[in-house]
């Protein structure tokens, strides 16, 4: 089986325990996407053997029946298009050697990794298109100790 999106060891484990968890066919969502961590799920009433497809690679077969439990800690699949092509290009294809990247995620419930990465890609692309410009935020306040400031103002 092709294993473009999982390590071989993960596939082998999935062969033993996982069942009907995360189905993507041609990019369409077929079942609720599996989130990282232990996940209970499955297709009720299903027959013994199911193939499941992640992205465009067939990655394994479940061997359970009905509801199954994924015992493998499993990352949801994000291929390059899901990460956001622009972010991927910025980070890995434009001559800059990535040393470290971190995000402060937004506050929307249900914010997806794809939306986060797309927002980051958009912001970075806009900056690199315009050119780097150092513009740190400045408080605009005169320095004072709390003791002095609040004694004056009460």
């Amino acid at each position, binding site marked *: 089986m092709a294993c473009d999106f999982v390590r071989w060891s993960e596939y082998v484990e999935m062969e033993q325990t996982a069942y009907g968890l995360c189905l993507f066919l041609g990019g369409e969502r077929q079942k609720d996407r599996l*989130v*990282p*961590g*232990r996940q209970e799920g499955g297709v009720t009433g299903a027959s013994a053997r199911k193939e499941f497809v992640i992205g465009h690679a067939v990655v394994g077969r479940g061997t359970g029946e009905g509801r199954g439990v994924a015992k493998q*800690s499993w*990352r*949801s699949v*994000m291929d*390059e298009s899901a*990460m956001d092509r622009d972010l*991927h290009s910025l*980070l*890995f294809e434009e*001559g*800059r*050697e*990535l*040393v*470290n*990247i*971190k*995000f*402060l*995620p*937004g*506050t*929307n419930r249900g*914010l*997806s*990794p794809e*939306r*986060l*990465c*797309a*927002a*980051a890609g958009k*912001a*970075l692309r*806009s*900056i690199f298109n315009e050119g*780097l*410009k*150092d*513009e*740190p*935020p*400045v*408080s*605009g*306040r005169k*320095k*004072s*100790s*709390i*003791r002095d*400031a*609040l004694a004056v*103002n009460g």
Partner: protein
Amino acid sequence: MSLRKLYDLFRGRTDLPIEITELRDAVVKFGPQDGIIFQGRDLDPGELGGIFYQWKDHPAPYAEPRLMTLIVFPSNALVSSQRMVCAKELVHIMDPPIERVNDADKLKSLAEKLLGPMSSEDFGLADLIAAQDKMAVYRCIPLVFPSAARIEAIAAAEAGSTIEKIAEVACLPARIVELALSPDWAEIEKTILEDC
């Protein structure tokens, strides 16, 4: 360069606000950085609050690579929030090598772990990196609200000053000042300092 050295440098400061450029100057003093750039962008607060991006430039063959850091903050947020984002992201300059996200797999994992539910059953590098990333907010507080200033703030609060007035002097979000003045903060700060 370590976070502890930065803490020691700012610990006794009472003159507020601590400007982001002061933090940057201190970081540059301690370690090799060719450029630390802060740049604002309109960010949808529901999707993205800030970015820390560090890379090496190779300006010419055989030339020394330059270590560049770009911190993106929300220009459409209040200045106090902008400053908090910058301070939090600046702390990542001190990330130990194991916590650096420097390839596509780690980036994917980080995004998922940051947004996914915390699970006590997941153990792995991605979980560690995401957990430490969340800690960065706590780690930057002693830099923008140093211990000596905090002592003055406690006295001011006991004398009747409001959190909002104190936050205004420090140019920080009120909720951060509230956390730093909470009874738990002394222990939290002690833990952070012991870890670095």
